[in-house]
């Protein structure tokens, strides 16, 4: 059996601890800790379904080893908002019909957050480029682009959201 070690992760603002083998990915660790909102689509860095923010940077958690995330802030889609107080991106995606099967959406909303953080007024190219690592098989992306632009507008109007 491979050697395990205790890793402390800061996930959505809360410290959580687990014992994992050294080669355990952040994706596996997060799901093991019950963060089922982080999805697995390929485990190879090809689809972006597993994307989380690591100190504000969008990364594929399936390509990140869990121990490398220790000491960093991990944010999943559930850390952005919830049913009672959704993030403007979540509201825009839901109301704009941007989620169909929804399996890609946790990763896509994370990528979208990174896009808006980098470009508060994103151009269509900023959005497309920022989503180039995320696959969606259902939507054709059109409504996703629209939802991101809408949310960015909403966030600017609010003067910067969480």
């Amino acid at each position, binding site marked *: 059996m491979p050697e395990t070690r205790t890793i402390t992760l800061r996930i959505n603002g809360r410290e959580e601890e687990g014992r994992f083998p050294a080669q355990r990915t952040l994706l596996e660790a997060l799901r093991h800790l019950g963060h089922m909102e982080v999805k697995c689509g390929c485990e190879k860095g090809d689809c972006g379904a597993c994307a989380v923010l690591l100190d504000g940077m969008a990364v594929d958690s399936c390509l990140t080893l869990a121990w490398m995330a220790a000491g960093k802030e991990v944010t999943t889609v*559930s850390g952005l908002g919830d049913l009672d107080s959704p993030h403007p991106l979540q509201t825009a995606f839901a109301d704009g019909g941007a*989620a169909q099967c929804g399996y890609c959406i946790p990763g896509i909303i994370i990528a979208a957050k990174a896009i808006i953080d980098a470009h508060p007024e994103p151009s269509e190219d900023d959005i497309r480029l920022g989503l180039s690592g995320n*696959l969606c098989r259902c*939507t*054709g992306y059109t409504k996703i682009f629209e939802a991101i632009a809408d949310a960015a507008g909403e966030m600017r109007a609010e003067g910067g959201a969480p």
Partner: protein
Amino acid sequence: MTQTDVDPGTLANVQFRQVGKPLTRTDAPGKVTGRTPYAGDYVMPNMLHMRVVRADIASARLARLDVSKARALAGVACVLTADEVTDRTAATDIPGQTGQKRLDTDQPILVKDRVRYFGEPLALIAAETRDIADHAAELIEFELEPIPGVYDPLEALKPGAPLVYGEDNIVAERKIRKGDVEAGFARADLVVGNTYKTPFQEHAFLEPEVGLAWVDENDVVNIRVSTQVIEHFRPIADAIGVPHNKVRVRGALVGGGFGGKEDLTVEVYLALLAKQTGRPVRLEYSREDSFVGHGKRHPFILTYRTGVTKDGKITALDVQMIADAGAYVFLSPYVVLYALVAAPGPYRVDNLNVFAQAVATNNMYTSAFRGFGALQACTAYEQQMDEIANTLGIDRLELRRRNFLKTGEPMSTGFVPPSAIWTEQCAEKAWAGLGEPSPEKGPIRTGRGLACYQQSYGRLTFLHDTSEAWVGVEMDGTVVVRSGVTDIGAGQISALGQIAVEVLGVTLDNVVIYNSDSAVTPLAGTTTATRALYMTGNAAKQAAEGLRARLAERAAQEFGAAPDEIDMAFNEVFVIDRPEQRMPLVELVRTCAAEGIHRSELAIFRAPFSDFLDPETGQGQAHPDYAYGAHAVEVSVDVETGEVEVLKSIAAHDVGQCINPAAVEGQIQGGAQNGQGYALSEEMLYEEGRLVTPSFSEYLMPTAMDMPNVECIILESRSGVGPFGAKGIGEPAMTAVAPAIANAVADAIGVRVFEMPITPERVVTALQQRDAS
């Protein structure tokens, strides 16, 4: 951008409060906040992890299989091989879901001696952890002795070809013989003949196949699984040898289906090991497993010979179709039937011969995929229409106009579709929607293409399809809908809610929908064949109307009015002409409860039933009804590199009646993407049956960088056989996309690439051939 166009004649007396509005889907908030559990998100205490061990040669004899080392590994709970499941098979055809006789097409659950395709399962492992299961898989020793296989359906048809199974490799043959084709060709001024080839396609739902199974206190095998079809509880029970009421399939919101979760996937493996170990077992396919573990879209070779007059009227059509069925039957007989029926497209062809064959090979088996054979036919007939137009020098839209099937006219099978046929309106709007041409410069050429389609919605009528739904109202006026329907992402369940609340006069936030549990939600039938809205929507509407009638009767009594004078809207009940006579719905419901009046209704909706098409002529009814529409694109082609970019993508569909326009647009835009990948980039490469592109870095789907913003033009003829006159849009959204792109590429470079996907290499080769001749 969406335009909606309603025939003013059909607007009379239609006023909706909930239907036709782009409401936020009931499933959306959970999905965007990460709250929605998918089948893979369920875990149980004491759960085992499964793994499937697969053959790595496509055609072979299993000479030796030794699992003893794997069994001996600490942490391995069970290893199952064919020896433990002797004589057990699993259904591969449309199962007895509707009481029809099953074809004799079962597949062995695990390989006993003959391997017929790459990836065929040899053994199942259940272990304490995924790591141990993976390790055990490495310890399994097997020897495969190669047997000559056949990987090309044309080769498979030749005398003496290696046999995949049976006496020949012919899986199914269907034909249409209509009118007098000889006479039709004799009358033609010109005969245009071409052969078109379509490729394999992978569904590539983002959520790989996954499930969790356990045996409960009643000895019922429960399976929480990502599936389009909870009715599979029956073939699962048959496969593991227990009564049908001892298997319960509990679906979850599905992370994409597109037909790829229509057949059994992981269910039987889960059921067997849950039974065997007595513990909960979980099986999640890796992406690579998913690529080799479920059926693909059938590649077709389609040969069209069309007789036309100088002014472009079709006088005769002869079509030969050969589909690669792969190594097991699955839905091939029905896929070629769809292709057969769709062969002439949305055109009036009175003299028609069609012959369609499904042929077994040692390639991956092929089965359902959005469009289901009718899409492959469209890919050919719409390229053929452009070839005819170009040969005759007639405008491409005009040629189509001269041949469109019109409302009330008989289609290929002699059946007259009951709804309006608005192909022409759709084609004109989509074509006009392309606007001003984009500029060409340097090596960039631009071109435009159009394609029109006819696509069924609802299952084959000989299956005698039905759907049940239950609608009830709680004591506080909130509404509950129960329907077994699975939601594969198109908003199937939210639409049911919208329909129920329209009828009952409440708002969508007052409804909760329970779905996809084979034991407790009324069986609604499969989410396949663009039938969910049509069938389950009609069932939910019927149930809601039954309930409404009972409530209205009690209210009428209260108000001293007739039941048909009562209306219900915005959670209130009132007399239509005396709105001051009103009461909150909740009050009426309490009264009903106090008096023992039933506050729920169970309804069954039956599709039209027919016999099978005449086997000699192919005449009769195949489907309940058909949808019509068109897709137009503008592309640019780099004549140096062969690269194609889609610049504009415009869809116009008559959906009958939108239930939720945002959801309809979503289907159309997703269909545009699915079709664009099919036309241009998605390529499954097989070498002697072995898939060499089993990942998303090799199998290239359109990304956010590749997709244009897809414009949707929605027409509403209100003539469909679905609820409120709706048709269906799930499959139709994709059908015409690929041929529109092929036509645009041919328009741009003046030469056609007859085989999809239209990769840069194929474009460059076509250009070289053009220049050489």
